[in-house]
């Protein structure tokens, strides 16, 4: 049961009956004076039961307001009394609450007391009764309970008995998180009823057959329009009625409550209001805020939720005690703030910020302030910002107008200066910033440019490089660079050259003298100090061995040994992009006491070889190469294998060569090579090891540890075998890619023997033959000398002259020809042949007529007499080789066959030549009989006769004259079935077969 929310707990109202009370009190005091004697009687008669007991209802607040009086008390005295109250619900016997209320009561005073019900009072009838007891030590004899008053019924159920369902409470306003009990009264509705909260069914308990209650705990805030609770009859499935529970957010205490003044005219109080507790349907507006000042007693309703202005009066009030009260329909909260006005001064921001006397390194800043009175001193803070960050901060005490000299400025720089102020005596808050920007003018560059040079070996061309000056040293925009070249060996004019910015290099062509080069940078305000560099007549750079260094991702750490103690410094030069033609030349100058450094660059990439040169710079500003370093920030595995060429392939070895492979352009230091050899042999040769490749194949591995050894001979191989090889470079941590193996087959070893043995033999034979040919006459004389001609014999002349003239040697005409060979020839021009018939002289024709004495009978066999007449018209060359007269001739072998099978080229040519000559002389198209006989020289008349009696050959046939072939060139004889005529009639194609 709640008592606190009911608006009235107790109230007394005795004045209206004052006059009557005077008399009654007098009477009671009289009675009291007699109490000693009559106490027992009085105790029985004094009726302390509350009278005029009334109960009223505030159904919206769910409150029962009780009021009563106690008449029978002595007049004008206060008695401490206890009232016991019983409240029943539905019926008197169902007591739901009983409690005591202690208070002091005067005679005939009306006592008020309220009770808040959990349950809406409309849900059920309530009954109340009361009794009392005097709880006063002065009157112990009255310390007994009076009798109960009669039950007072409270019934606000004005809807009972109707056919409408009612839900209570109606439109209740509660705070988020509170517990609410609702009920419905179904009246005469007999159906089952279900109730829902925002669509979710809720379950309650039945108070009586028509009333059910639902306890909702910790109700949430859902919307400003309220939470809908409704009930429906299950059978009708129609919503009968409902109620809206307006759940307000909990009113929060204002946070960060603060007040300040900016001009001593207005106090501005601000706070964080927290959540807005406003509800729609006019259930609750936004919480209100009221400012109350206790010293002045003034109050102000604040229009805004988070701030309020309080006018400062001129009564010189310094101390303020503010109470900020916020309230809504459900709750009231307040916060307090006590302060001295002069401690809460928040000055206005300065204004009219100006700069005076701006030079390259200083400027005067001035500003004005809103006046706060003569006695106020402000602390102003001046800040100087450049390039987005604060550079300087200064504090200045100011009365009215501020001024500050800003020093240590940089030329040609844009600055922002700003100022804000606060109360110097009692710091409360800084004002807002006020500021402006300004730019200092340019000044001459303060430092010489960083200059270095490269010199091409063997020439006098010098390329000067310089780095742009930093903004700090440039003091403005660099317009150009001046280069002055002075010959140190012989007096001459200075050569000046002006190079516009932003160029960073120039090339000078010098002669063999020493030169001093001075470089300055200039802006609009002047030139920088000169950077001096000396180029000696002879560079004198000695050969320095390159040293390998290990780099990291952070750069290359290197050190060097100084050679002479008299140095100005050291210079390390390198190329950021050594693979590019321009190479992005870089250098780093170091002091004379530095012998180590770390060269780092964002351009450094893994797998790129960087070469560093360290120069010693003498006091004469001459550079000497000290050391050379090379290295990688990180070595990468070689991406390519060398292109290998196979040389000297023999049956037992071959040589691999990769001369074009550049070790310096690889992504790592090449430490050597691995040569992999695959073969069918299981065992590796000496010097090789077995290795397992990534594809699990096994091969032999030869290791070459010298990266400059770019040839390798694989030996001890087998002839006529296949081998596969792969050459891959290896670095200190990996090797090249596992590429494709190249196949090689070793040749057979016998062809070499043949070349070495047979070729010399052939050469010897050829030489011998040639020798024989050259000495043929000698050979003929030695081997087969000529047979003497009997006609030419001297013996014959002697016979003719001395003995019988009839006596003759056998005449040719006596010979009977035993074989005739017919040659048919169609080629040639008839006209030509006719015209040239007479020119066919015997010597020419006889050149074609190799005559042989051939057997006429087929059955001839045996070595018959062979008479061979010497014919002087015969071709001597052919006859030289002929051996017909000496070698036995097979009677079966026709002479034509021999001609066909002649293989001597010389002879064929000779034949062809003769043949062609004869073609020109023999009439074309005619059938020509070339009479081959034992006669040495056919007559022209014979020729004619032969023409007329010619055998007609098949048209379009080509014939060749039958020729006699020396026996020594003849092939073996043909078969017996060979037809003579068919063999001799030859087509042209067969001749050159």
């Amino acid at each position, binding site marked *: 049961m709640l008592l606190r929310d009911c608006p009235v707990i107790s109230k007394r109202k005795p004045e209206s009956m004052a006059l009557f009370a005077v008399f009654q009190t007098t009477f009671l005091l009289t009675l009291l004076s007699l109490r000693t004697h009559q106490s027992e009687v009085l105790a029985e008669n004094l009726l302390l039961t509350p009278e005029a007991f009334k109960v009223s209802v505030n159904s919206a607040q769910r409150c029962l307001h009780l009021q009563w009086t106690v008449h029978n008390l002595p007049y004008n005295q206060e008695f401490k009394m206890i009232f016991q109250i019983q409240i029943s619900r539905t019926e008197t016997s169902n007591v739901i609450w009983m409690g005591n209320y202690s208070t002091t009561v005067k005679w005939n005073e009306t006592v008020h007391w309220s009770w808040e019900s959990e349950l809406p009072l409309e849900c059920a009838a309530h009954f109340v009764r009361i009794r009392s007891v005097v709880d006063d030590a002065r009157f112990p004899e009255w310390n007994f309970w009076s009798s109960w008053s009669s039950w007072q019924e409270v019934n606000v159920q004005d809807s009972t008995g109707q056919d409408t369902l009612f839900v209570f409470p109606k439109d209740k306003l509660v705070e988020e998180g509170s517990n609410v009990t609702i009920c419905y009264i179904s009246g005469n509705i007999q159906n089952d009823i279900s109730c829902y909260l925002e*669509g979710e069914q809720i379950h309650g308990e039945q108070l009586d057959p028509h009333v059910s209650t639902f306890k909702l705990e910790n109700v949430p805030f859902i919307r*400003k329009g309220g939470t*809908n609770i409704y009930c429906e009859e299950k059978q009708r499935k129609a919503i009968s009625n409902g109620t*809206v529970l307006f759940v307000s957010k909990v009113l929060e205490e204002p946070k960060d409550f603060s007040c300040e003044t900016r001009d001593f005219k207005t106090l501005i109080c601000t706070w964080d209001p927290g959540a807005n507790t406003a509800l729609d*349907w006019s259930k609750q507006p936004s919480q209100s805020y009221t400012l109350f000042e206790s010293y002045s007693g003034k109050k102000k309703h604040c229009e805004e939720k988070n701030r309020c202005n309080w006018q400062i009066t001129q009564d010189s009030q310094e101390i303020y005690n503010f109470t900020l009260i916020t309230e809504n329909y459900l709750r009231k909260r307040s916060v307090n703030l006590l302060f001295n006005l002069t401690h809460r001064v928040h000055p206005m921001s300065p204004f009219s910020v100006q700069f005076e006397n701006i030079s390259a390194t200083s400027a005067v800043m001035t500003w004005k302030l809103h006046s706060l009175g003569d006695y106020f001193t402000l602390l102003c803070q001046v800040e100087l910002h450049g390039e987005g960050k604060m550079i300087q901060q200064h504090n200045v005490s100011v009365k009215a107008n501020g001024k500050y000299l800003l020093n240590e400025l940089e030329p040609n720089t844009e600055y922002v200066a700003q100022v804000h102020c606060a109360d110097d005596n009692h710091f409360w808050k800084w004002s807002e910033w006020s500021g402006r920007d300004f730019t200092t003018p340019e000044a001459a560059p303060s430092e010489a440019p960083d200059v270095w040079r490269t010199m091409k070996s063997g020439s006098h061309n010098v390329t000067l490089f310089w780095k742009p000056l930093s903004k700090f040293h440039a003091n403005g925009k660099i317009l150009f660079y001046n280069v002055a070249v002075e010959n140190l060996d012989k007096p001459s004019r200075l050569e000046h050259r002006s190079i516009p910015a932003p160029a960073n290099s120039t090339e000078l062509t010098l002669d063999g003298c020493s030169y001093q080069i001075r470089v300055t940078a200039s802006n609009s305000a002047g030139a920088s100090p000169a950077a001096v560099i000396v180029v000696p007549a002879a560079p004198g750079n000695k050969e320095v061995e390159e040293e390998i260094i290990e780099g990291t991702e952070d750069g290359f750490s290197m050190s060097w040994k100084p050679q002479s103690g008299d140095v100005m410094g050291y210079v390390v030069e390198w190329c950021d992009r050594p693979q590019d033609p321009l190479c992005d030349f870089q250098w780093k100058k170091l002091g004379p006491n530095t012998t180590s450094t770390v060269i780092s660059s964002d351009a450094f990439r893994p797998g790129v070889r960087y070469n560093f040169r360290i120069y010693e710079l003498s006091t004469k500003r001459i550079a000497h190469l000290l050391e050379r370093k090379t290295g990688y920030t990180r070595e990468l595995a070689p991406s390519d294998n060398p292109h290998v060429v196979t040389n000297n392939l023999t049956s037992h070895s071959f040589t691999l060569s990769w001369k074009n492979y550049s070790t310096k352009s690889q992504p790592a230091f090449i430490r050597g090579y691995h040569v992999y050899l695959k073969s069918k042999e299981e065992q590796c040769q000496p010097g090789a090891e077995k290795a397992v490749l990534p594809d699990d194949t096994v091969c032999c591995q030869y290791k070459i540890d010298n990266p400059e050894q770019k040839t390798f001979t694989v030996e001890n191989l087998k002839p006529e075998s296949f081998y596969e090889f792969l050459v891959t470079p290896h670095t200190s941590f990996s090797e090249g890619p596992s590429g494709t193996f190249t196949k090689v087959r070793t040749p057979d070893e016998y062809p070499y023997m043949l070349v070495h043995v047979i070729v010399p033999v052939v050469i010897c034979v050829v030489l011998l033959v040639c020798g024989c040919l050259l000495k043929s006459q000698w050979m003929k004389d030695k081997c087969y000398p000529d047979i003497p001609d009997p006609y030419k014999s001297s013996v014959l002349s002697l016979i003719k002259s001395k003995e019988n003239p009839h006596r003759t040697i056998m005449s040719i005409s006596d010979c009977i020809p035993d074989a005739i060979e017919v040659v048919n020839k169609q080629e040639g021009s008839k006209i030509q042949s006719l015209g040239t018939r007479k020119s066919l002289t015997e010597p020419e024709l006889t050149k074609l007529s190799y005559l042989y004495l051939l057997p006429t009978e087929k059955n001839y066999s045996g070595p018959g007499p062979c008479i061979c007449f010497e014919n002087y018209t015969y071709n001597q060359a052919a006859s030289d080789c002929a051996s017909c007269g000496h070698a036995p001739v097979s009677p079966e072998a026709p002479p034509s066959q021999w001609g066909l099978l002649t293989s001597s080229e010389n002879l064929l040519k000779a034949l062809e030549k003769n043949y062609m000559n004869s073609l020109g002389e023999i009439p074309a198209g005619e059938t020509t009989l070339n009479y081959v006989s034992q006669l040495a020289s056919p007559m022209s008349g014979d020729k004619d006769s032969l023409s007329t009696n010619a055998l007609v050959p098949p048209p379009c046939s080509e014939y060749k004259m039958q020729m006699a072939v020396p026996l020594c060139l003849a092939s073996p004889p043909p078969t017996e079935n060979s037809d003579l005529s068919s063999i001799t009639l030859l087509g042209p194609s067969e001749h050159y077969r």
Partner: protein
Amino acid sequence: MLACLCTVLWHLPAVPALNRTGDPGPGPSIQKTYDLTRYLEHQLRSLAGTYLNYLGPPFNEPDFNPPRLGADTLPRATVNLEVWRSLNDKLRLTQNYEAYSHLLCYLRGLNRQAATAELRHSLAHFCTSLQGLLGSIAGVMATLGYPLPQPLPGTEPTWTPGPAHSDFLQKMDDFWLLKELQTWLWRSAKDFNRLKKKMQPPAAAVTLHLEAHGF
């Protein structure tokens, strides 16, 4: 733009050209009124969704069908079909005018309840549109020579719920107001379509019929 249209329609009765014989007749006015009715129908669909969501469940549930407890004073759009057919033009237009006069007044009451600026803006916008429709109907009636119905003294509709009228029942009334408004817009579309056909010459009627079919 719609506000301009509504304003123009509101002032339609004052346009002398529409009151003269020999003008295009009431056809265009009726067509415009019909179009405005359809547009309002579309606009109300959006507004009702927003407003019923603001009321919360069960009012935004699709099958919500509460008893018409406090909504008896709302003009009913539902009418017997035969009765509707037998209505003459004057009575038909008068019923429309009276209904929207009442509904507009009730609708302005909703604006007082709603706290969110967005909802207030939507309601105000719809009220302006409805005001335009009322003006448009008045214009048609003026064109046809019908007098505007005069509100009887003391019968001016008000939106002052009594103390016994709970907020839940008030929400129910709001639901019914939106529902009745929608029904009235449906009915008005039919009313003006019927009037439109009736007022147009037969030849033109064929054309318009085709257009309507296409729409």
